[in-house]
């Protein structure tokens, strides 16, 4: 079995999810429940750090699509960071850069969240 791990860090109003390993049809439910938990806890500012994500399949991409609408309805967002070029290529093929904010570094994403909050 392929290995997949999720680690969650909660900062000031921003939750960071770190993904590690293979995100495919088998492991997608793990990420789903992580998102589900954030939603029930009303944590809508989410940064997904993909530094250790080695592979993502279409089922993995589907997880983001399933939750992004609800998150954005609540004035939150899912921002993706620290992708390897291979993972980025998968996101890029599908046109995700046009749908999601993707940053090289987690800090950039947090800065954007904070800027957004100031503007409110």
């Amino acid at each position, binding site marked *: 079995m392929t290995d997949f791990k999720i680690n969650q860090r909660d900062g000031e109003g921003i939750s960071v999810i770190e993904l590690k390993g293979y995100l495919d049809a088998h492991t997608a439910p793990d990420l789903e429940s992580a998102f589900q938990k954030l939603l029930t806890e009303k944590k809508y500012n989410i940064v997904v750090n993909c530094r250790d994500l080695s592979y993502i399949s*279409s089922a993995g991409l*589907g997880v983001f699509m399933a939750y992004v*609408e609800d998150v954005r309805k609540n004035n939150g967002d899912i921002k993706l960071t620290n992708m390897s070029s291979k993972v980025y290529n998968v996101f890029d*093929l*599908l046109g995700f850069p*046009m*749908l999601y904010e993707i940053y090289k570094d987690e800090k950039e994403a947090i800065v954007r969240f904070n800027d957004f909050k100031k503007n409110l």
Partner: protein
Amino acid sequence: MPRIRQIILIIIPATLLPIIFIYDVTRSAVNFEVISLSIIREIFVVFTFGLICLFVISHYREQRKNATKEIGKILFALLFSLLLIAVSALIQPTVAQGRESLSINQSIVSILISTILTAMLVTLTMYLLLIILDLILFKRKRNTKKYYYAYIILLSLTCIAELSFIKKEIGFISTVLFSLSILAIIFNSFRQNWIVYLSKREKIYSIIFSVLLFISLTILNLFLTQNSITNSKLIAYSGLLHSFIQLNALFGAVYFGVTFVSALFHLPTAEVFERKQSELSSLHNLSRLVTQVFDFNDLVNTVTQMTTEVCAANSVWLELFFIDENTGEINVEISAKKNISQQKIDLISDNSAIQLRHYLLDTKKVLLVDDIWSDYRTKNLKDKGFSGSLLTVPLLSHGKLIGVLNATKDYKNAFDQDDIEVMTTFADHVSIAIENSRLIAKSIERERLHQEMMVAQRMQKRLLPQYLPTLPSVEFSAASESSFEVGGDYYDIIDLSKNKFGIVVGDVSGKGVSAAFYMAEVKGIVLALSKISKTPKELLTGANEALKESLDKNAFISAMYAVLDANEETLTLARAGHCPALFISQDKAEFVRPNGIGLGLTKRNQFENAIEERKIKLKKGDVFVFYTDGITEARNSMMEEYGYDRLLKIAMESKEYPADVIKDRIINNVRTFISMGSYNDDITIIILKWLGN
């Protein structure tokens, strides 16, 4: 035929007996004895009684035998003959003198009594002999029959030695033979196996019958000793028959004497033996029933019935638990009950069983309540008319409690270790049967689903093009393989008329049935839009619009659509999140990757703004490879991806070949790469080779 033989067997003696009687009367009247005549008479007597014995044998063999019943019959016959003997002794009180007294000065009545007594006792003892034979041969061992025949032979020899004309010569031998016969009697009398297998009730009957037989046969033997009137009458009639009667009566007395003693000793163990026997036979029945899963009701009814019988329980019922996995709620179904009403079971449930059930769910062990009134778990039942003891054994399947088998007895401390063991075994059998029926139901369901999937697979295959268009200026070749029965890959080459062709390849996110449904939907949408859309961009925008509404939130479709204009010699393509097309011309090779977003990911505006088109002017020998990510993401056992570079390399090396060969070479190259690994995705590939006008 047997009837005719029987008639002959009875008619001849019935004729001969009166003749012998007339001869005896005449001889007695004239007081005259001729040796030769007396020998002839003895031969006649032996012949007559031989036939009577044969008749008894054939009559006995004809009816089905029940040992106890036969013993009863012979007992009545015996008591009747004893009565007759007593009556005859009263009529003729004087002791006749001498052995040959029959020939001298005997009244007709006396001779008649001799004849009747002899005939009766011979028939009776012959019958007795046959019954003993049957008893002895029950569960026979190798030597059993030999001993019995030894007795028969000795009996015959002893009888023959009693013939008057022989006895005079070898008097002492007859004593030896008589002694040997008694020895054979003792040997045979220890063959009492049949007693063991009787039920307790039958054993009691056997004791009564055998003691009565023993007493009556002993009395008969007393009559048959020297100096009694009966004895002298019988000896006077025939010494041979007298010995026959005497030995058989002795045999009977000894045999049934031993029977009495041995049945008496077996009586205390009778119940245990009986119980073990019924356990054995019920287990046998159960094992047979367990394999007949479709008779589940039959099985549970048999189990309750058997529990009632084997454990001597007052009431038995079987509950099956259906535990709701979400709520943890227990639904109880009484699948069989014996001697207990639904109301009573409900009463137990209402007042204690919930606790009992929880106790069982927690412990999964046998629950024994020795006294319903005093046990803390069942105290409440005291006022509801319950008393005695309760035994509940769990039905376990894979360590899960799936039901319980309950039994009650109406006195305290009624269940012993044997009851617990038997009921546990019964419960296990029911568990196995339930497990079996569930497995069968499951495998039938699986088989049905498999059939459905095969149908779906056939249907889906027909959604893919059966023939590719053939025209002089272009070669098409395509292949698609699913990793499951049905897949989410889709391709088509659509004739748009005016020498234009639409080439589409798509990949539905996810796999299996849901992907297959979406794939069918995509085919419909693309076919419809291809007729009205002017450009690939317009078609994909339309498809996104249609799919956005019907797709699941987390589902999307990547697609590439290209239009080949054979007249204009151009290929125009647009990409909706799909893998870039590989374009190989004479001088260069590149992945064509115009911008675009996957179908169903976003709304019309964003999609339309994002999507680009690219138009390529075709030159002779240009090759396009359209494919799905099953190719580039195929992995070998080292978890390495096949990737774009390998695809580019093999396509470059193959570009001079016809389209079919290019396709085969690429697929083989992918297969060689993954070797030991396997496809975990659907793969689809389309080759377009432009030959020029």
